């Protein structure tokens, strides 16, 4: 409302007010008839009128900023659905090029760990966005699936020596399977009740990992997990066994940063694939059914859509992406402990989804980046981090409940009949 036109209106208003003041004050105060020896003399006394005019002018200028502007009655207008931007592909391409070149730039290089963690949170939040954003099922236990993915890779690597890429689909499947396992008992629940049950599930998983010493190593977790390979080459300093490292192949001396860059690219690859897959899913019948379930479950049932199937697909697919994120996290850190999957993780992932805009992929990506990188920038305020975080969430919910970058509805061109 208040762009340049707003400013324009304010200035115009101030000029008019000043003119009115001039018309009133100049004749009344400025012109004075004095009786002098020679008769009547018209004297002009401009100090007070000028002061008055200036005070009114500037007062009028700043008034709208002091007082809440009384806007004209806003007629609720039809929300016009924007056409898909014609330059969408160009934008996406530019964004991808930026993401690919980022680690080689000085600021990007210094933030590699932060950026890679951002990728992990993006994956997690994209998955949770299916459950919470599209299907409208409040899930407070997303970290459980993250943990299941991480431990699946860690254990398979530890006991069977599976590589990251071999274990990745299995981690996704395991997390998806547990998504279904959780899904069954909670099928009849909605809203608050569902939130409590998922919260409990998250804690159960964490406690199980913490206490099943013989399998998971208890609170110490699992260490020395293999790093992923990139196109078959190892990215560590020295190859395990007789393999060749990427650095030997490229003929460069190993620097730790190189490994971080390689991990960043694997994270980026996973995020890009997730975005493409979920974008397609959201356009497919299953994606429409998720949204319909969020909108009105009773209407869904009356049209022959089985809420059971819709909820299970949402839970299993959403959890699957958390499983991928978990496997990547285990590979990235090289160790997993149950502490990494506490309730606060679920809360942060949910915050990302809500902050970005429920059901909006671009919003979720933006929010994941914001929430993981802001602490890096604001190191000086480290103690106040959670305080600021909480405050931001409160303010967002009051002023922008739809999120930072809400989704716009897709336009469909109808066939001409």
């Amino acid at each position: 409302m208040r762009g340049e036109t707003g400013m324009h209106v304010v200035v115009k208003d101030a000029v008019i007010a000043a003119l009115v003041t001039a018309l009133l004050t100049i004749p009344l105060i400025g012109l004075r008839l004095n009786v002098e020896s020679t008769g009547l003399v018209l004297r002009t006394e401009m100090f007070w009128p000028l002061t008055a005019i200036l005070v009114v002018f500037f007062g009028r200028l700043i008034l709208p900023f002091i007082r809440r502007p009384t806007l004209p009655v806003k007629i609720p207008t039809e929300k016009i659905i924007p056409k898909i931007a014609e330059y969408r592909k160009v934008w996406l391409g530019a964004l991808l090029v930026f993401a690919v070149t980022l680690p080689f730039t000085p600021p990007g290089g210094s933030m590699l760990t932060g950026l890679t963690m951002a990728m992990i949170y993006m994956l997690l939040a994209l998955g949770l966005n299916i459950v919470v954003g599209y299907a409208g099922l409040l899930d407070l236990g997303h970290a459980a699936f993250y943990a299941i993915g991480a431990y699946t890779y860690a254990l398979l690597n530890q006991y069977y020596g599976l590589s990251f890429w071999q274990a990745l689909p299995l981690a996704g499947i395991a997390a998806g399977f547990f998504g279904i396992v959780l899904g069954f008992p909670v099928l009849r629940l909605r809203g608050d009740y569902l939130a409590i049950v998922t919260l409990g599930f998250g804690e159960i998983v964490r406690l199980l990992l913490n206490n099943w010493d013989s399998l998971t190593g208890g609170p110490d977790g699992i260490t020395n997990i293999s790093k992923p390979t990139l196109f078959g080459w190892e990215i560590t300093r020295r190859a395990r066994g007789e393999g060749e490292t990427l650095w030997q192949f490229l003929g460069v001396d190993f620097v730790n940063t190189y490994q971080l860059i390689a991990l960043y690219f694997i994270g980026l690859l996973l995020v890009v694939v997730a975005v493409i897959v979920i974008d397609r899913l959201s356009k497919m019948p299953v994606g429409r059914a998720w949204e319909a379930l969020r909108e009105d479950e009773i209407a869904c049932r009356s049209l022959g859509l089985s809420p059971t199937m819709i909820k299970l697909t949402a839970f299993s697919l959403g959890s699957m992406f958390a499983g991928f994120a978990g496997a990547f996290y285990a590979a990235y850190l090289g160790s997993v402990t149950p502490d990494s999957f506490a309730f606060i993780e679920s809360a942060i992932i949910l915050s990302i989804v809500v902050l970005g805009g429920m059901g909006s992929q671009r919003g979720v990506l933006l929010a994941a980046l914001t929430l993981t990188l802001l602490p890096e920038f604001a190191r000086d305020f480290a103690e106040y981090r959670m305080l600021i975080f909480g405050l931001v969430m409160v303010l967002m919910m009051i002023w922008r409940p739809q999120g930072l970058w809400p989704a716009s509805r897709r336009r469909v061109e109808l066939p001409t009949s």
Partner: protein
Amino acid sequence: MITADETILTSARENRPTMLSVHNLQMRFGGLSAVDGINFHVKEKEIFAIIGPNGAGKTTVFNCISGFYKPSKGEIVYGGNDIAGQPSHKLARKGIVRTFQNVRLFRNMTVVENLLVAQHAQLNTNLLSGLFNTSRYRVSEQAALSRATFWLNKVRLRDVANREAGNLSYGQQRRLEIARCMITHPKLLLLDEPAAGLNPQETVALDVLIRDLRETCGVTILLIEHDMRLVMEISDCILVMEYGQPIAEGTPEEVKNNPRVIQAYLGAADE
């Protein structure tokens, strides 16, 4: 109770096959008996209306037929089977689809998306074929879109196809809800007060639409309505309920002149 006229009518209706029969339907909520001893038969391609004062239990009957309630007692025979207590989404797939007294659209989805969702059961919902965009999937989606377009034209909503359903006017929302039901190819359409909130012109247009659905789509219609002009105009048969019990059944003429019905609507004469 059965008059000579009614016997003639009944025998004329007898010749048509039955779509739905309700036998001795009873629905109790704790100690309250919302519906008790309801019997009726809906013939194929018929427009059958249930009327009665507020709180008579009409919507409860609908909820039992469409599977949202499990009746306490009684049979609901449809397609040769007792369907009482089956889940609503299964009944919808068998061809019993309903609208709601207070319109239930997917308000934040566009009009055309509402119509696409409704076709879920008929579409290729295989995840892999969708992800890989196979030709079968594309054909299925294209067909869904052209069916949606057909219905948008039919209920005059083509111009607002890409608007969010919640932003439509009330009359448009009602039409969209009917179109959303029809796109599932129902055999039995249950309309719960379709004229509520419509202005007189829209109600007249609704007459035309309901008749047209019966003629061109061959759908049987079971209707709850308070607008007597509409009911008397289009119904083949009317069941009148009061306090959960049937008080009359017959053609619009018979029901209109039934003293019991007049008493229920206007109250008993002072004595």
